[in-house]
Structures are given as C-alpha cells and as structure tokens.
C-alpha cells in the first residue's frame, strides 16, 4: 500500500524513517523481536495503550497492517483517490448482503486519521445498559476521570464557526424546539484548525526509544502455550516477497479494530471459550438527508461535521434512539447519497453548493455477526432489525421537518428509491417508502462489538479492563469490546477505555513484567 505514493517515499523507507516516531515501513529480511508488549493495531485503542506503556519504560512494538502517512504527506496530496488508500478496502467494505457500507481506517493512526474527530462521552443510560446486560464494573466516576485526562491529551474543544451548512440544522432545531448543540472535537486552533489524531496526540509524544511501529505488517498468527500467548507472527509483503516478523512479548494487546480483532481471534481459535467472539456486533447505521436551499450555502468551505440534535437520543428519551448530526460531504459521497443515475444524478450534484446535509445515526441492536468463510476471511452479517428500521424512518422524517423549518426548498432522503420532498405536505412519502430490507442507503463509520466486555466469561470475551477471560496475557483494546452500541460517536470512549486498561496493566506492572 502506498509504496511509491510520493517521490521521496522510497528514499525515506531506506532511511528507516526517523521522525518523532520510530517507524519502519519496509522489510528486507525476516526478523525476530523481543519486547515487553506487542500491540496489534495503531488506532484509537492501540496508540493510547502503547503510549502509556512506553512512557512507563516498557519496550513496546506496534504492528500495523496499513501504511504510514505523515500529516505533511496528507496535506500535500491533491488527488483524493490517493487519500482513499488510508481507508480499509479504499472504503469499499460491505456486509455479506451488501446493504451496509462500513468505513474504517487502515493506516498508522487507524480510523482517527480519517474520521471527523467528534468527541462524546458515553451516555450514562448506555453505561447502565452495559452494567445490567454484561456486568461492566468500572464506575461512572472512574470512567469520567479518565475521560477528562484523555480529553486534555487530545485537546477536545467545542466547535465554533462551523459554517452555514451546519447552521441550517441548528436553525431548524431551534424553530421546532428540538434539543441540540455544537459538538466537541479534538482539534487545535492553529492554521485554521488542525484535527488531532493519535499520531499527533499519542504516538509522536511517546518515547521513541521505547515505542517502535512496524507498518505494512499484518499479524496473522497468534502462537499459544498453555494459557498464554507465546508469540505473534506478522507478515510483510513487498513485490511478491513475503517477510516474516516473529514477536515474543510478555503481553499482547489486540487493537486491530472491530471486525479485524474478532477475525484474528477466530482465525487463531483463541480467547473464545464462550463462543461469543464475533457476536453482538452493532454499527450505528446511518442514512443521509440532503436539503436544497434557494441561496448559496457553500458547504465545501465548512467543517466536515459540527452540530447534533439529541432530542431523540438515549439521553433525552432514556432508551436507544437516534442522533442527528450535520455533516458536509465530498461530491463523490454526495453522488451516492442522491438519487438517479447519469444525467438525473448530475442535476442533484449541480445543487452541491446550495445544499446542507445531515446524517441520522441509529443506536442499533447488537445483532451483527462475524464469521470466517472457507478462505478464513471475515464475513460480516448484519440486517437492520424492524425496530431499528422504524427508528431510521422516523429519523429521516424528523430531519426533513427540521430542514423545511430552516427554509429548505427540497429535501432528499437516503432511501434507495428516489424520495424527493418539496414541502412538509410530502412527508407521508417517507412512510410510504417503509423500512424493509434494502429500503435505505446505509453506511457505518462506527462498527462496535464482536469481543464484548463483561463479568461473565461464559458470555463475554474480556473483563471490564479489557483483559481476556481465557488468555492470561491478552488484552483487547478497541471498539470491539463495547457490549452494545454507544449511541454517540465512539472515538473518545475507545481511547478512554484503552487508557483505563493501560493503567490497570501498569498497576500490576511488577506482577506481569517482573
């Protein structure tokens, strides 16, 4: 991935890139590494754990399947298709029945490189569900103290001056009396606002003497000895040549992200005495609503995401519902979110600068499942439940009302079948479309679950501090440990739970590492 992406790339690889990171992206010969901690994945969970453990003096090696792209490389890139290399399967990852597109990052920094950086704490109501359903043990105070530390590290602040496209959602909510607010984001104000990611916030701040990253290395085998992992085997493929990296470590932290973490456990038949690995998957499936106005909005100059309406979310309604978030999207995504093909679709694209966009995000049931096909690759099965379909239908209808209240002249909902509303009189059309299988264009940026945490080893994979029930020296730190969907954007909670896990490991440092 990205071997010759930029002219200086090959030279940089030869030099064993010595940035603030100790990172290696190319390998000529097999290697064996002995470290204290091996972390699989460098996203929101892995980076946080890696940082804390490296700062405590432990030797940490992080394995990353994707490539390394520095901020400067991303900033200097003018061809958007090259930026798609940062996405898993270039963004073309779908469930078995291709009704849901799943977006995840696949590069050093994981999804924090490609996401919009929105930060929410887990709603207390969701935390209560976790406690009652799987016996999650950490207290509200313990969690919120950790949130505060993470927020400081990643520089979370409330969004201001987001732009007109986002103000339309705010205006509509105000007119209809719906609760809403500007979201929080991890960014600094320099140079017009720089979104933070774990490369900035954690990895580049870690001691490079203690933390090494091997990019373009896919962990494939987990070797077990009794109740413990004895080693990890990773492969690096370059020009049809495969190099093997053998890692021996005292503990292993699996942070490959939802789907990939479960896939690796299933492939290696490990940590699954409960039979629950790959189960209880949720996605926050989202569909879009595009509103056209009679004046220029110029959303392409705005922030990517900014305002949210929580009137129908779990905090207000006390049960899993839906969130509405303002978002502005590229013409490529805009094309897939608008109806018609060819010329007809081009007419909608022609109104790009007159449009505002919002997404409806469902706090869905955890009824998805990951299994392996005969080639040992993960296959994701997920179908929107009837109840979730109804929530989404209501959500789309609500956003349409909000946008009309804000003065929209036309509203296009995220149905497969062309659904264009000219006024609130047309809202019944949304009901007519129904919520059956294949009714909506669905996308998920928040896959969660598959290795859920809980107190009972018969029904969960890890304990509340991410330690495997089955394997003594295995920790899983990513969104796959969430027992149910959060109901809000998960990045901050992944980091916080990983931070709690890291501190728990350090509390037992002498026992674990001697």
């Amino acid at each position, binding site marked *: 991935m990205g071997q010759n992406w930029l002219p200086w790339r090959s030279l940089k690889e030869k030099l064993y890139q010595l940035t603030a990171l100790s990172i290696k992206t190319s390998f000529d010969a097999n290697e064996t590494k002995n470290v204290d901690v091996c972390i699989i994945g460098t996203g929101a969970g892995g980076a946080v754990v890696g940082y804390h453990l490296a700062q405590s003096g432990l030797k940490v090696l992080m394995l990353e399947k994707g490539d390394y792209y520095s901020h400067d490389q*991303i900033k200097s890139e003018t061809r958007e298709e090259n930026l798609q290399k940062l996405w898993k399967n270039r963004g073309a990852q779908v469930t078995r029945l291709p009704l849901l597109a799943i977006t995840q990052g696949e590069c050093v920094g994981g999804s924090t490189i490609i996401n919009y950086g929105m930060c929410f704490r887990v709603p207390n109501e969701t935390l209560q569900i976790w406690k009652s359903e799987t016996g999650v043990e950490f207290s509200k105070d313990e969690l919120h103290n950790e949130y505060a530390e993470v927020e400081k590290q990643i520089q979370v602040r409330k969004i201001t001056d987001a732009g007109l496209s986002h103000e339309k959602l705010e205006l509509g909510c105000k007119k209809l009396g719906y609760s809403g607010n500007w979201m929080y984001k991890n960014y600094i104000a320099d140079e017009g606002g720089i979104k933070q990611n774990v490369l900035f916030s954690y990895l580049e701040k870690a001691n490079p003497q203690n933390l090494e990253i091997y990019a373009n290395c896919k962990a494939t085998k987990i070797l077990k000895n009794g109740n413990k992992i004895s080693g990890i085997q990773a492969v690096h493929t370059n020009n049809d040549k495969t190099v093997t990296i053998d890692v021996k470590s005292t503990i292993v932290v699996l942070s490959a992200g939802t789907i990939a973490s479960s896939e690796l456990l299933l492939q290696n038949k490990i940590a699954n005495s409960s039979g629950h690995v790959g189960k209880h998957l949720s996605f926050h499936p989202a569909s879009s609503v595009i509103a056209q106005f009679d004046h220029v909005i110029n959303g392409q100059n705005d922030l990517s995401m900014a305002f949210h309406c929580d009137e129908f979310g779990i905090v207000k309604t006390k049960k899993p519902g839906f969130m509405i978030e303002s978002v502005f999207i*590229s013409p*490529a995504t805009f094309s897939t979110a608008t109806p018609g093909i060819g010329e007809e679709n081009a007419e909608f694209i022609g109104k790009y600068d007159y449009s505002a966009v919002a997404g409806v995000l469902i706090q869905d049931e955890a009824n998805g499942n990951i299994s392996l*096909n005969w080639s040992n690759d993960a296959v994701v099965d997920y179908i929107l439940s009837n109840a979730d379909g109804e929530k989404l239908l209501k959500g789309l209808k609500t956003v349409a009302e909000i946008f009309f209240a804000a003065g929209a002249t036309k509203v296009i909902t995220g149905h497969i079948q062309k659904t264009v509303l000219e006024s609130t009189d047309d809202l019944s059309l949304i009901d007519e479309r129904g919520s059956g299988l294949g009714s909506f264009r669905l996308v998920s940026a928040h896959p969660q679950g598959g290795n859920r945490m809980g107190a009972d080893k018969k029904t969960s994979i890890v304990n509340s501090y991410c330690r495997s029930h089955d394997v003594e020296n295995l920790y899983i730190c990513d969104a796959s440990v969430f027992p149910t969907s959060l109901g809000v954007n998960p990045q901050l909670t992944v980091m916080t739970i990983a931070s709690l896990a890291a501190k728990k490991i350090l509390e037992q440092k002498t026992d674990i590492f001697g």
Partner: protein
Amino acid sequence: MSTSDLIIYLILSLLIGYGIGFFTVKINHLLVIFLGKLWSSGNAQKRYILVGGIATIVFGMAVFLKTNDFTLTILSTSVFAILFLVGVKHAMHRFNQYLEILNALIQSLFPKKDPNDDQHDALLADTSKISQQMLESMRKSSLESLKILFFFFDSVFAVFLISLTKGKFRFNRFVHLSDKDQVDYMHIWADSEILNLAPVALKALIGYSYYTSHLSWDKIGYRGEVLRRSYIN
C-alpha cells in the same frame, strides 16, 4: 441408429456439454461469494477439470446405457467434453470482460456531448482507473458478487428479458447496444423497485469514482477541499 438419432445425440452432447461447462464457471463464482473458497485460478481450474471429468463419465455412461452403441458413446462423449471446455473458456472470457462492461457503463452514464471534448475522455479514463483501484481493493467475495452482477447485467438474457418488461425487443449484450438503448436499459433497472439495488451498487462505484476524479470538479464548482479538510481540519 438412424442419422436423425445421431444428430439429436450430437446436438444434445453439444448443448449439455457447453451448458455444464459455462455454468460450472458461474457456480464457481457463486461459491467464491458464499463460501469464499476456491479463489485462486489454480484451484478453480482443478475444480473445472474435476467437474468436467465426472460430467463426461456420467454423460458417456448415460448415452451407452440408453443406446448400447459404443461408437456413438465415444463420439457424443468427445463432443460433450470438447463443448464443456468451450463452455468453460467462454464463461471465463465473459467474466474477465467485467472491465469492458464497466467502461461501457461509465460511458453510458456520462455520455460525451461534444465530440471534441478531450477533457471528457480524460475524465472517463480517470473514472475507469479509480473504479478499478476500488474493485482491486475489495474483498474477493465482494468483487465476485460485483462481477456476477456485471455479467448478468450485460448478458443477452437479461437485456432481452428486462427490456421486454417495457415492451422493447432487444437481443444483444449491453456492451453492444446503441448509446440510446444502453441509457434506456439502465433506466429500466433504476426505475424498478425490484432491480434498483443493482444500479445503486453500480452507481456507488462509478459515480463515486467519477466525482473523486479532480477532472470532474470544475464542472460543479468544487475546489477539492472537503475530503482533505476532513483529514486535516
């Protein structure tokens, strides 16, 4: 054995051999989708040889039991085996034409209005390149699903049947239809409540690629900010 019987047996051998060969490839692709197995071409070829061998033996035995004629059995079994091979080759060739079908789709979705518009040609070439990059990055099982979709969409069978639902008689592959008929055929799919998932999937790939290309941006006044801003700002 009369001459007419001989001809019937040979025609049967020809049709059944070709059909089994052709559909063996198709079933293999379905297996890849549903089971994820037999991806590599080496495995696929072994499978075709196995199926071909068994089918030829079964067919030969059936002919012999029916006719008790050794010469006819040898003759019809040979025809069967050859046509099985032709069927496999033809199906493999058709499946490998998905890029040709993709390009025909791109051209019908974004037709060239001005024959001298070189920029448009460059944009379509870029769209094709980006689409191919996306296809190559997909999981193999998802790619096989799309290939089957391309294959079916393009087939004479689908063009004939689906056009007939609108009272139009077309007996040709999609890639060989006129520009006007290609657009019309696409719209029959898109306007159908049953079939419209397919054009949505194809549009998701082609439309996404078209508007990802920086060559499409001037037309819509896009300055290339959104995606980059989402990584940076």
